[in-house]
Structure formats: C-alpha cells, structure tokens
C-alpha cells in the first residue's frame, strides 16, 4: 500500500465536447474548448510550475509562476488563465521563463520561514516542491527584509490551525471557501504587503462564519492551514479510498494512515458524490473511533438493574442465542425480532435480516428508515415503480429550477448543499417550502425566489394547491403525460386537484401561505425549464408523509420533470446507508430488492440459497414491536447499530416496550441510551475497521475499506455470523465480498455488483445488471419500471395532533450541521464545540409573551411528556412554531414527540407536536432521574474485577 496522490490538473475540466488542436512543447495535443493551457499540458504529462492554481478552483492567475510563451503573442501569459486555441504553439520551458519563475520564487521564499525540517507540511508542501521545480538555489534578497514571521497562529478551530507566517497569499483558501463550499467566510484583508487571509470580520476562525468544511485546508499549498492531527502525528505513509459513515451524500475520502493510526481524512477528487469536497463531520469528526467510552468487550447481565459483567465473545453469543431460543420456545416464533442499521454496511444489514428471516423464522425485521424515509419507499414505488430517488447528484448542474421542501441541505447534507448553492449562484431559481427560514432562503449570493413558510403539517395542501395551478392554468406537459402515464388516472387526478377547495386561495387559509406566493411558485416550477425537487424528513415525518411523497411525484409527472438530467424527485437520505438498508431487505414486508415476502418466486430464491423455508407473512414494524412488547407478546430483540430510545418518538413508550422484553441485545460502539434496557451488549466496529459497501441517496454503491484492525476484535458482520451460527442457522463467509456476491446472486437490481466491479469503476448506481451493466445514474429514461407513471389522489387530512389552549405552539425537530442523528458519534468529537446542547428556537413574539429570554432554561411540554432546554430567540422560526434538535440524550427531545405516524408506513410525526413553553430553573425531574438511571445502567464489572 502506498499514499494515493491524485493528479492536480491545475484548472477544472471543460465540459465542452468540441476539441481544439494545439502544440505544446513540440507535441500536438487535442483538448476540449475552454481548457486551460496548464490543464492541456498536464493531460499530456507536462507539469507547469504553479502555486495559486488547483483543479478544484477556477483559474486566478496571481502567482505568476505558470507563465508560458505562445508563438505570435507578446509577453508571457499565465497558462492557468489562458485557454487553448486552434493552432496555438506553446512553450512551457524557455530561458526567459526559467528566469522569471526563479525571480518570482525568490520573492516568495524571502518572506517564508525556513523551518522546513520541523514544518508539518514537510514532504507535502507545494512551495517546497515548486522551489525545486524552478531550480531555486539562492535568494538574492536575503531574509532580513520586511516579513510576516511575527504574526500569531490562530488555533481556535478544534481541527486545524492557521499560521499566517507561512501564508503566500495565493488566495486558494479564499476561493475554496467561495467556489467549493459557498460560505464566503474568508477574505484577503489589507493591500500589498499587508495582505493577509482573514476569517469573517478579521476574527479567529472559530468565531467566524466558517463551517469547518476543510476546503481551505485542502486547498492550502503550504502549512498555513494544517490539520491538528497532521501536526501531532506527522505525514501519512499510505492511504485507502473509503466512504464516509455520516449522512446520505456518501462522500468518498482517502483515509491517510501511518501504520494503523489515522492521520487525516482527505476528500477524494474522484469521488462521484462529493468530487473532492467534504464537511466538518466526514473530514474531521472521526475521533469517536478511539474515544475512551467505546466498549471493546462483550457484556451480559440478568436484569437491566444489574451492573454489566464483561464476558468472552463465546459466552455472550451463546447467552444471546440461548435466550432467543428460550423465548421462542416459550412465547412462539414471532415473539422475537430485530433492527438493522443504516449506519452499518449493506453486507451487515443483509446478514441481520437474513438471520431474522432464516434463524428466527419470521419477518420481524425493521430498520431506522421506519422513522425517516419509509414513506419515500412507499410513495416512489407506488408512483414510479422503484423505491428510490430518480437522479444522481451531478444532475443538479443541469437544473434551472430547484424546489426544496422539508429539507435543510446546508446542514443535513452539506456537501450536496454546497453543490446546490453553486448551481444557484450560476442562476438557477430556488423555491423553498419550509416552516423555518433555512440557510438556503438567504445565504451569501443565494436568495430563494419564493419561500413558502407553511404551517407544519400542511405539505399535502400546499403541493395539491401547486398542482391546482399547474392544471387549471394549462401548464401540464401533455405530451409527457400522454406518453408516460395512465390517461384515466391522470384525468381523475386533474379533476381532483382542479376542485376549488384545492385552489391557493382556499389552501392559504390552512397553510398560512399567501395564495399569490403559491401561484408564483407553481408557475416557476412548471415553466422554468428543468425543475428538480429535493426533499427530506420535513416531508416524510408526518401523518401524511407518504401522501406528500405521492404529491411530489404527481408534480414531476404532470410537468414531465423526469427521465433526464436536471429534473427528478430526489429524497435526501439522512443516514449514510439508509438507501442501502432499505435495498437490503430490512423492511418486514420485503426481501432485498423490494420484493414482497408473499412473492413466491422471490421467496423460493432465498429458500434455495439459505436452505430454510421462509415466512410468507409481513412481520412487525418497530412501533408494532414496541406495542406488542408492552402488550406482552414480543419478548426479545437484536438491535444492530441503532439507538431507538433516543431516535424514536415518545421516549416513555419506547422505554416501556424495551423494559417489557426479556432479552434485548444491543450491538453498538458505545453504551447508547437503548443499552440502558439491554441484557447483552456486543461491541461493534467502526467503518474504519471493516470492509463493506454503503449506498448513498443517489443509489450509488461505494466501497468501505478496512484501514485498521477492529478494536473490538470483529467486524459487525462477523458478530452476526457468530450469533446466527449459535442459533443453528449456519452462515459461512470468509470476507464481506462473499456476502455481496450472495446479494448479487439473489437480487436482480444488484446482479452486476461485485467488489471487483466496484474496485474497477469506483462505484455503481443500481440497478446494475445485464440491462444496465454500468449502473443507472438517472432513472425512468423512456419508461417506468412499473410501465406507466401513476397519478395518485392526495387528499389533505389535517393531523390529529392539534394545537389548543394548553398546547398552543407547534414543535418541529431537525438536525444541525455539526451533529449526526442521535449524536453518538459526533458528541464524542470536538464537534461539541459548535453545539454542546440542544437549543429551542422560539420566535421573539412567542418568547416575549412567555417572558422567555435568550439563553434561559425553558420547559418544553406536550401531551406525551416534558423536558427542559435553553432558548434561542430567533425569527428564523415563524410565530407559533418552535424548533429543536435531537442530538443530545440530556435533552431527549423525543420525550415530547407523540406516537402519531404516517398512515402508510408508521413513520413518526416528528415534525408536528403541539407544545407549550414556560420558563424553568433547569433540568426537569425526569431528566435528573434519567441521568441517574443511565449512570446506574452503565456500571461495568470488568473481567479482572470479576475474577477477583
């Protein structure tokens, strides 16, 4: 293994298909029109010296190092800013160029500390490399002149340092922040010799609006911006390409290693989802992998009130297996089940559902998509025949109109959010439908054309009103509808949405959005060119989540915004492998590839391969399991990598369900909140410690590569294999690639997927099979899997969670950039510096009415329960609406959420809870009790103590 060094072509690739022929250093070359001379030269293997150029950034032409001579042209133009031209004859190395470059380099070096031996960038410094490239042998100016050596290092950011003494003012960091990230947090302050990089209003990095994405650090050619881990450890010596374990964007990274120690995660330019960009989580927040709270030994206990007892793997596995057998013998086959994890690999998820179906003999398997994107699966399968988004991320580059509903991409999917912002800066129009003023509504150089700040719970009404405008104003794409959709279903739908009660003027009364705004948004979506819809959990986590997905699909069908780049219906998946977990048969009614368990053909495939008869009945969903547990018929559960006590609604009910079970097996990195109710704890492994694959929101299957030994001893897939074997359902795999081979053998949409194929192509998007050997970046080109696109009537049904005198405000929950889901990982990193606790956003008007001031403790009270947290008074939320995150167990926001759920999938209605706010002195009695209970539950008798 060696360090992967990607080629830097100096400037971005041109998208032109027209080729230009020119001569560089006597060699005839062809390059797409618009390509820089620098890139054309690099494509042929000639590296022109450079410092301010980088192929992630637009050319800038400031360093004066990349000069070339062009026959027939005066002077020595910069090769980065000069495009190729037909017949051009270029020389990259002449006596004049050599002298000029040396002179420039002398000036740089005369104001640069010569501490190369102790510098963090030693061995990976472009200044050092280019000094060598230009043949610098002396600095005639000496080092005694004016310089910047006394400037003070900024170490305020938890992950990187800014050392101005080493800055060559190449502007790469500033441009990366603007062009790649789109935050515009950096600038060059001062003029001439006083020019320096300055975050925000010349503040420390941490206090500025910097979002710590790392683009500036990556762009820096010297040690000016350096990872603290690199400074501490030293230069890496080998690397492996792997996939981030946060969010559904699925960024590809190089895990840069020294031995088995991770030095840094560097975004991989060839990553098809992220194209070399990253966010604060994937780039920096991996410290949880070695956090002191990680559990590395298996543990068991008879009662949840007992302390944990460390045991051998054999004892833990055998104990869990014997308990499940005992429970099934006592209470019946259907009395146990399990939960797969969207944080685990496809292979691990596949094995857990295989264990449940094959060893437990029932279909009581579910996954955390139950509480996030299960309505997406239902809705898109109904409308288009396939349970997945229609586009790849690159598609956004061809969008003219972007409609974002119930999603906050700059926080939840930040790397894609940056790409979206880039397209918006290029001129695409933006419609935001969200109760909150998310950052996209107004962010540097981006302003939503229309923000429909609707009342929480009225998505269906608004989308049907948009459909009303499209139909009644004659904006339907009739040719598309005629060719691709069922005519009768369309007629029914068109008549339905045309009813006056669906007009914007009527809907405005319930949704709180002015009718003219709805009409304008509808016209823009239908007539603005390529229109794409991006949505998130603000769509799905409602009692009408599935109806909303169907309403979105209706809009795309009616306007013909499907089946080509720039359009489509794009669910932004929350966790890294939500798509994969759903694909792998994690739902109680479906095998891998979304085939119903009653499908005799599909069942026969698995019965043949697994060697057991399989249940043809749908199993229990997570909320059904918990209800059945409270009722006394569901007694045991195997939970891999999920923390339902914190992530699922109505915490008291979840706790009651778990407490009623006789065997709860939790497999995780940490003693999470659910483990408070566990009898067996099986320590899990991180994504750095195992091989596998994740599938991102664009159906892209990507490799996860093991870069260090599992600290717990085993990959999670090996633990499931051991448990299955102990249950008497043998599994034999030597490597996760063999699990993928079985998936490919048994799942038509994955038939062409193998580790060899992924290694060769980098990634593929399913379906990948004989019909689509290279995968499917954009779906539904020319037709739908189900034949015709299906229009579905979407009657608005108000949620039963109503506000009233006791609970007059509506709570909606979400996530923040620096944290991930329940925070189990990110809370164990320096990311807590940005968000140490969950806060309650409340409008100034509502705060004033209740005498609540910014930063004060408030009690958040609903019909389900109460908790306390600090208030953040902001007009980001509308009057009558409050918002919080669910990242911290000390808050347990889900104590107040209810068990209302989506009609089709039981996805919880996290986004609408009627609440009241009042002033408080501090944590509630329940929070204090919970803290004590959690502490008691986490007591461990270590194996040495036990032996004594």
């Amino acid at each position: 293994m060696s360090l992967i060094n990607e080629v830097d072509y100096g400037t971005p690739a041109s998208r032109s298909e027209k080729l230009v022929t020119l001569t560089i250093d006597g060699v005839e070359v062809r390059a797409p029109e618009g390509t820089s001379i620098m890139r054309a030269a690099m494509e042929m293997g000639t590296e022109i010296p450079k410092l301010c150029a980088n192929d992630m950034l637009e050319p800038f032409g400031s360093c004066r190092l990349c000069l070339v001579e062009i026959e027939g042209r005066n002077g020595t133009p910069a090769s980065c800013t000069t495009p190729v031209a037909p017949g051009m004859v270029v020389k990259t190395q002449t006596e004049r160029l050599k002298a000029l470059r040396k002179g420039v380099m002398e000036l740089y070096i005369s104001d640069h500390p010569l501490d190369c031996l102790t510098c963090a960038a030693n061995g990976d410094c472009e200044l050092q490399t280019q000094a060598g490239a230009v043949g610098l042998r002396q600095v005639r100016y000496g080092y005694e002149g004016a310089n910047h050596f006394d400037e003070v290092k900024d170490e305020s950011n938890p992950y990187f340092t800014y050392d101005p003494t080493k800055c060559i003012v190449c502007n790469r960091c500033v441009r990366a922040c603007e062009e790649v990230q789109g935050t515009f947090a950096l600038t060059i302050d001062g003029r001439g010799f006083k020019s320096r990089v300055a975050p925000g209003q010349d503040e420390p990095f941490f206090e500025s609006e910097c979002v710590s994405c790392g683009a500036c650090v990556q762009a820096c050619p010297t040690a000016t911006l350096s990872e603290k881990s690199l400074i501490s450890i030293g230069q890496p010596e080998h690397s492996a390409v792997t996939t981030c374990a946060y969010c559904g964007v699925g960024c590809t990274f190089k895990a840069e290693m020294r031995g088995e120690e991770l030095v840094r995660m560097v975004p991989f330019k060839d990553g098809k989802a992220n194209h070399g960009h990253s966010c604060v989580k994937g780039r920096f927040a991996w410290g949880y992998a070695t956090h002191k709270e990680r559990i590395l030994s298996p543990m068991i206990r008879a009662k949840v009130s007992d302390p944990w007892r460390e045991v051998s793997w054999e004892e833990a596995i055998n104990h869990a297996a014997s308990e499940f057998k005992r429970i099934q013998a006592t209470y019946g086959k259907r009395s146990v089940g399990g939960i797969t994890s969207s944080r685990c690999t496809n292979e691990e998820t596949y094995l857990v559902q295989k264990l449940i179906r094959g060893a437990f003999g029932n279909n009581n398997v579910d996954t955390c998509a139950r509480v996030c994107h299960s309505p997406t699966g239902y809705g898109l399968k109904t409308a288009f025949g396939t349970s997945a988004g229609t586009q790849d991320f690159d598609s956004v580059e061809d969008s003219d109109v972007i409609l974002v509903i119930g999603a906050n991409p700059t926080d939840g999917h930040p790397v894609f959010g940056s790409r979206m912002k880039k397209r918006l800066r290029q001129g695409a129009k933006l419609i935001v439908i969200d109760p909150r003023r998310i950052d996209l509504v107004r962010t540097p150089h981006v302003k939503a054309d229309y923000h429909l700040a609707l009342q929480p719970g009225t998505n269906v009404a608004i989308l049907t009103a948009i459909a009303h405008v499209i139909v009644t104003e004659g904006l339907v794409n009739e040719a598309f509808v005629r060719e691709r959709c069922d005519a009768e279903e369309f007629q029914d739908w068109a008549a339905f949405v045309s009813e006056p009660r669906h007009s914007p003027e009527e809907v405005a009364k319930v949704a709180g959005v002015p009718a003219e705004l709805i009409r304008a948004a509808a016209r823009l979506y239908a007539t603005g060119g390529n229109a794409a819809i991006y949505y998130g959990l603000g769509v799905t986590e409602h009692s009408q989540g599935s109806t909303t997905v169907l309403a979105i699909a209706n809009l795309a069908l009616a306007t013909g915004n499907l089946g080509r780049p720039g359009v489509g219906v794009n669910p932004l998946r929350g966790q890294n492998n939500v798509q994969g977990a759903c694909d792998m048969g994690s739902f109680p009614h479906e095998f891998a590839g979304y085939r119903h368990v009653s499908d005799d053909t599909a069942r026969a495939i698995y019965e043949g391969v697994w060697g057991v008869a399989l249940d043809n009945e749908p199993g229990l969903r997570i909320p059904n399991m918990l209800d059945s547990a409270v009722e006394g018929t569901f007694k045991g559960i195997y939970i891999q990598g999920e923390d339902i006590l914190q992530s699922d609604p109505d915490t008291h009910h979840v706790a009651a369900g778990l407490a009623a079970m006789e065997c709860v097996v939790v497999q995780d990195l940490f003693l999470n909140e659910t483990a408070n109710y566990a009898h067996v704890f099986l320590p899990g492994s991180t994504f750095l410690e195992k091989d596998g694959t994740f599938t991102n929101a664009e159906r892209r299957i990507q490799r996860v590569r093991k870069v260090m030994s599992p600290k717990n001893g085993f990959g999670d897939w090996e633990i499931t294999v051991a448990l299955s074997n102990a249950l008497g359902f043998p599994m034999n795999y030597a490597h996760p690639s063999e699990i993928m081979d079985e998936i490919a053998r048994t799942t038509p949409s994955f038939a062409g997927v193998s580790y060899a194929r992924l290694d060769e192509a980098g990634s593929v998007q399913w379906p990948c099979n004989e019909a689509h050997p290279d995968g499917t970046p954009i779906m539904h080109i020319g037709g739908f899997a189900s034949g015709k696109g299906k229009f579905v009537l979407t009657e608005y049904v108000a949620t039963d969670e109503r506000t009233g005198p006791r609970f007059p405000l509506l709570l909606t929950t979400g996530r923040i950039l620096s944290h991930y889901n329940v925070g189990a990982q990110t809370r164990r990193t320096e990311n807590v510096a940005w968000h140490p606790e969950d806060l309650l956003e409340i409008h100034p008007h509502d705060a004033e009415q209740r005498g609540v001031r910014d930063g004060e403790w408030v009690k958040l009270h609903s019909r389900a329960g109460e908790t306390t947290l600090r208030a953040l008074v902001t007009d980001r939320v509308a009057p009558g609406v409050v918002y919080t995150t669910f990242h911290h167990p000390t808050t347990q926001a889900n104590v107040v959420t209810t068990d209302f759920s989506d009609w089709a999938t039981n996805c919880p209605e996290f986004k609408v809870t009627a609440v009241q706010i009042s002033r408080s002195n501090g944590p509630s009695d329940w929070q204090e009790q919970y803290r004590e209970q959690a502490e008691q539950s986490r007591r461990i008798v270590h194996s040495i103590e036990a032996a004594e």
Partner: protein
Amino acid sequence: MSPDKLIYMANQIGKFFSAQRHDQAVAGIADHLAKFWDPSMRKKILAHLEHGGEGLDPLVKEAVQKLGMMNFSRTDVVAGSAASVANS
C-alpha cells in the same frame, strides 16, 4: 396491540383511500392491510369486525370484510399458526 390503536391506524389508511372511487378505495385499503400488517394485527382487526367493528369508518369496514374474504395462501398464519414456517 390494542384494538383502539388498530382501529385508528385502519381509519387513517381509509382516509387516504377515501378520495378514490369506492371500489378502488375498498380494494386499496384491503390490499394495504394484507401487504403491510402482521398476521396478528390482521387477526385482531378481523376479530373486531366480527364483534361489530365499532369505531371503524364505513369504508374501512367494507375493506376489512374484503380482507377476511381474501384467499390467502397464508390463511393458516392469519389464523394464528406459524405452520407455514418450517424453519429448523
């Protein structure tokens, strides 16, 4: 699961399909229950209907009746047996 909760869930499903033509709606609700509800849940809602089906919306009542008449190859499981699962 308590009958009240099942009744609530079934009526929720019914409200979605109620916008459709009558026969389509009844078939849609019944199909949904058959596809997504665990046999023990179906058994309980069928038992509730046998006792009059109080609380079920009219459309849902019809759908549950239809569900009861569906010719499942898996009726043994609906009846509460796990005989169709021949796992070792």
